């Protein structure tokens, strides 16, 4: 029951609302609403001019109806009229209506903008605030166009009231988020940053959200905010709980502002100024200390506010990832929370620990909590908490605890919530592969996975186990034995039958010596599952049977019998019928030699990134998967079907385009090979009789089909990178434009530009001949772990390049984290029928994301000393390949992207540089020193190059790249 009605009671509105509430049915409600709408419409249309109050009341009713979920198609004009009322409440309702029901009607927008403009210039702070709130609520582009220039002026003007400044700051933030191109801080930047010093806490609280957003986009322009933020934070953290009066919240001083300050600092690397850094570390320590103090209040608000700051501080510590002491303290604190009675804290501790697990400084400390986390996985009653526990186990897994963690995750799977099973399965599969020391454990784990959660085992998972078994002959016998045993279960999952069929078909001979698993026993076991399986699985089993005929001649009669039965050879499914016919024929007419060649054991799969990992990445988005498979080295994209297609190139069958992706073993069997089924048998015979000697290089493909690479360029595997591709890459380390590659046919030119962690590259493909290139395709791929480090996007180019023409392609690059390898650019086209297939390294190197950093000598040496851990430094001593021309050297160092610092090194012969590498997740400060011995004889001139950075991989990579330049 509303005890009071503040301000203006609108009685008519209250009556209407209670009428609606008394409606017994949806129909009654709609009827009442329609009645009201008709009433309002007639009032608005009526001859009598409505007074402001009535207009306000009706507009408010319309708003109420809209918020109930009904459409409103009138009243906008009346609302706009209210904006120009000089009565506050009328104006307020007008603005509320506009904020909730923005209409892109341009006529109205103009009127609304006019009203806003009047209020902004009214110098009445309450009116100004209303107008600013409206802009912030709507945030449309039209409004940004009209006001983005005016609001910064209001924000920094000396005579603006505090409350107006607060609204202006957040209004600007909203406009910046919606239309960053229209909000230009320019000359205001420094005054906006200095709002951090404002004596009104509310102004700081509002302004800092704006500053954080601007800083994350333009860190350099706003970097002076770091020291201001640190001193503001320090004042808050060290203040007594009552100092800040109304900004103290349940005995916690300014929790919102503290969190926002800590958040702002996460846009930057650790402060370079030693004093600032010292002060900040002190703050962080104080925050960690306070967590150990007894609470000043039993209220949950007290502990929430306090812990909000603590978690934000821990995020900052993790972001810096450079203070081992703080990292370990953070980890211990989170460890305490893991057993806290508050579910919220347990949840957040698990979440936060996940990121701690990936820091080298705290990985071990996180691991000590394994038992608690396993316990959480077993006992937490809330599935979202269990999910966090599973994530953390995945993150903390390494060789030492993999068996335990995988076992726990497997047993959790049996009862896991359906919504998370698939992801759990992928994670178990990845861990099992990554940390497999002996592969029998790996095989056991995956078979268990299929047994426990077969429905959630995606194709990628069981493809992968087959790839691995094929590639490792030490595990093949074990795999055959295990899968044979698993198939004994009366009810086993279809995925198990697939794996079983494939593995026994390939390696059944390894266990055939044992009478308990003799060839016929194996066959009967597989065939007992046949009738319960879906068509694709049956197709796979038929392929296993023909392999059996080859492996075990004694099974031939039995299997031919099966193939010949009506249920096979006359199967209504074209695919199955065709296989039965083909295999039956193959087994009857081909000699044992031919059969043995065609059905030879599968050759090893090329090493490539685990398809499972790719899938998990897809599920979770790039960057979410920190675990990389160790054997996933530089490899092309995932195009399993095509891999095999190439080998069978000579076979003459003409269909079955290998699917370009995802179908890793080429098991997708829907496309029939040789035309309609009835003719298939004879086609096959033709193939053999005509192909003659070629048949010896023919193989039955994974799916039992003869297949070939069709004559389109795209299906050919990308060629390996050209031998000279590294050299070509090195040419572009210190420059952004030039010719990347040229031969008699093709010239590839590059123009590129980089800003922060983003880059754009223009590739120009020039056809040097007078003949057109057809099927011209280019593919940019990020091999191996580069996939999670760089985000590269391209648009396809036109497949035809006329003689003498040039086509352009734009590549957008986002650097997510530091990286070593270069993306691969594969170009394929046909020139006069001959396929050209060239792979180059795209000259995207880590130094492209440098921001030059100017600093004085003292700062440089201080930074230099701070980076004194051995792994932070990389050094190379090498012979000069070119002359030591000062200007050339300087140009190269500038081309690297760093700032060349003059008058820093005591020896004027030496060069020192500084820069920050910008990646999406962090910034890596980098210092460089190059010492030439210019006096030496030509031929004996040497350089010593030293790199120091906060990240070892970066030091090493930049050092390697640069050493090739002199």
């Amino acid at each position, binding site marked *: 029951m509303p005890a009071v009605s503040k301000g203006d009671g609108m009685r*008519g509105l*209250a009556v209407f609302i209670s009428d609606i509430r008394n409606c017994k049915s949806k129909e009654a409600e709609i009827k009442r609403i329609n009645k009201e709408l008709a009433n309002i419409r007639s009032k608005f249309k009526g001859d009598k001019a409505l007074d402001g109050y009535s207009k306000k009341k009706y507009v408010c009713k319309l708003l109420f109806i809209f918020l109930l979920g009904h459409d409103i198609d009138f009243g906008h004009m009346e609302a706009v009229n209210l904006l120009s009322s000089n009565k506050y409440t009328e104006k307020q309702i007008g603005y509320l209506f506009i904020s909730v029901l923005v209409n892109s009607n341009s006529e109205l927008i103009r009127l609304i903008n006019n009203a806003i403009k009047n209020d902004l210039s009214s110098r009445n702070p*309450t009116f100004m605030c209303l107008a600013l709130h409206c802009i912030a609520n709507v945030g449309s582009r039209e409004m940004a166009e009209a006001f983005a220039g005016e609001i910064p002026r209001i924000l920094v003007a000396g005579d603006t009231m505090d409350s107006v400044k607060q609204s202006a700051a957040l209004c600007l933030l909203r406009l910046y988020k919606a239309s960053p191109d229209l909000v230009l801080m320019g000359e205001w930047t420094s005054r906006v940053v200095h709002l951090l010093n404002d004596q009104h806490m509310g102004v700081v*609280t509002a302004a800092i959200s704006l500053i954080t957003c601007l800083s994350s986009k333009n860190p350099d322009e706003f970097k002076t905010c770091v020291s201001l933020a640190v001193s503001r934070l320090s004042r808050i953290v060290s203040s007594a709980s009552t100092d800040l009066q*109304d900004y103290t919240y349940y005995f916690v001083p300014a929790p919102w502002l503290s969190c926002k300050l800590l958040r702002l600092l996460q846009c930057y690397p650790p402060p370079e100024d030693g004093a600032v850094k010292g002060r900040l570390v002190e703050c962080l320590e104080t925050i960690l200390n306070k967590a150990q103090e007894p609470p000043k209040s039993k209220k949950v608000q007290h502990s*929430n506010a306090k812990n909000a700051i603590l978690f934000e501080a821990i995020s900052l510590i993790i972001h810096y990832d450079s203070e081992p002491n703080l990292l370990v303290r953070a980890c211990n604190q989170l460890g305490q929370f893991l057993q806290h009675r508050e579910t919220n804290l347990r949840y957040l501790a698990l979440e936060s620990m996940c990121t701690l697990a990936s820091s080298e400084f705290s990985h071990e400390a996180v691991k000590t909590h394994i038992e608690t986390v396993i316990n959480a996985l077993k006992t937490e009653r809330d599935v979202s908490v269990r999910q966090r526990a599973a994530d953390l186990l995945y993150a903390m897994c390494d060789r030492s605890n993999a068996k335990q963690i995988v076992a726990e995750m497997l047993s959790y799977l049996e009862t896991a919530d359906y919504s998370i099973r698939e992801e759990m399965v992928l994670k178990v599969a990845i861990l099992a592969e990554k940390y497999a020391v002996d592969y029998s454990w790996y095989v056991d784990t995956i078979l268990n996975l299929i047994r426990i959660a077969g429905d959630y085992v995606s194709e990628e998972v069981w493809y992968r186990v087959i790839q691995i078994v094929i590639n490792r002959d030490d595990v093949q016998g074990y795999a055959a034995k295990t899968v044979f045993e698993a198939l004994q279960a009366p009810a086993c999952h279809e995925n198990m039958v697939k794996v079983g069929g494939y593995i026994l078909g390939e390696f059944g001979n390894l266990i055939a010596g044992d009478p308990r698993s003799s060839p016929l026993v194996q066959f009967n076991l597989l065939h007992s599952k046949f009738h319960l399986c879906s068509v694709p699985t049956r197709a796979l089993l038929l392929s296993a049977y023909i392999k059996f005929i080859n492996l075990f001649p004694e099974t031939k009669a039995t299997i031919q019998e099966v193939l010949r039965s009506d249920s096979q050879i006359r199967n209504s499914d074209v695919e199955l019928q065709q296989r039965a016919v083909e295999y039956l024929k193959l087994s009857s007419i081909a000699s044992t030699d031919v059969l043995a060649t065609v059905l030879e054991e599968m050759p090893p799969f090329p090493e490539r990134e685990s398809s499972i990992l790719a899938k998990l990445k897809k599920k979770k988005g790039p960057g979410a998967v920190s675990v990389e498979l160790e054997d996933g080295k530089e490899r092309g994209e995932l195009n399993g079907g095509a891999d095999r297609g190439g080998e069978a190139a000579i076979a003459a069958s003409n269909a079955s385009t290998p699917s370009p992706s995802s179908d890793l073993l080429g098991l997708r069997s829907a496309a029939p090979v040789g035309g309609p089924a009835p003719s298939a048998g004879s086609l096959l015979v033709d193939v053999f009789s005509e192909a003659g000697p070629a048949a010896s290089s023919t193989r039955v493909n994974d799916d039992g089909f003869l297949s070939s690479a069709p004559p389109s360029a795209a299906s050919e595997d990308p060629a390996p990178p050209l031998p000279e591709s590294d050299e070509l890459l090195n040419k572009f380390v210190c420059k952004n434009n030039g010719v990347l590659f040229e031969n008699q046919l093709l010239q590839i030119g590059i123009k590129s530009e980089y800003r922060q962690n983003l880059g754009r590259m223009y590739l120009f493909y020039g056809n040097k001949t007078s003949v057109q290139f057809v099927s011209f395709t280019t593919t940019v791929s990020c091999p191996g772990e580069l996939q999670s480090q760089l985000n590269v996007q391209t648009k396809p180019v036109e497949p035809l390049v006329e003689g003498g023409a040039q086509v352009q392609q734009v590549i957008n690059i986002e650097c997510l984290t530091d990286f070593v390898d270069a993306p691969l650019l594969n170009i394929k086209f046909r020139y006069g029928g001959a396929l050209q297939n060239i792979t180059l390294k795209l000259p995207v190197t880590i130094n492209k994301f440098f921001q030059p950093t100017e600093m004085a000598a003292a700062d440089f040496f201080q930074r230099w000393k701070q980076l004194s851990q051995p792994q932070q430094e990389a050094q190379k001593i090498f012979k000069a390949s070119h002359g030591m021309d000062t200007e050339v050297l300087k140009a190269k160092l500038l081309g690297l992207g760093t700032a060349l610092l003059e008058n820093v090194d005591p020896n004027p012969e030496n060069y020192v540089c500084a820069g920050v590498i910008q990646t999406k997740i962090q910034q890596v400060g980098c210092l460089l020193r190059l010492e030439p011995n210019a006096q030496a004889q030509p031929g004996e001139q040497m350089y010593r190059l030293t790199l120091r950075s906060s990240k070892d991989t970066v030091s090493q990579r930049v050092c390697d790249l640069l050493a090739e330049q002199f």
Partner: protein
Amino acid sequence: MQFMLLFSRQGKLRLQKWYVPQADKEKKKITRELVQTVLARKPKMCSFLEWRDLKVVYKRYASLYFCCAIEDQDNELITLEIIHRYVELLDKYFGSVCELDIIFNFEKAYFILDEFLLGGEAQETSKKNVLKAIEQADLLQEPRHEYFNVPVY
């Protein structure tokens, strides 16, 4: 913060505030989905959940659920206290607030929210300052012939 929703235990939406543009249809879909998800949760469960690519922070006060969707880098606990501060503001303004106050004076609930949060960020966290702004506005208006206390239901 991307949006804030207030809804009753019966799933009736009482207040919606969107800080990033969404089509009306999408708003309805999001609301439906989220209301269902949150109502299905048990009382002792934690106040946070992952939802699409956002984090949802919610808390129940009497018959009303307050539910905020925040982005990945946002702080869950401080969001929980944003909710609490908003409840305190409503409580102070209406004097022991209940769901009916918000139903009958929905426009006030929006005004208070705008003073407290703007563009999805905390604008003014001092309870006194927010209420001062609202009360000033109330003083700016004049009594009308139709001015009554809201009748008792």
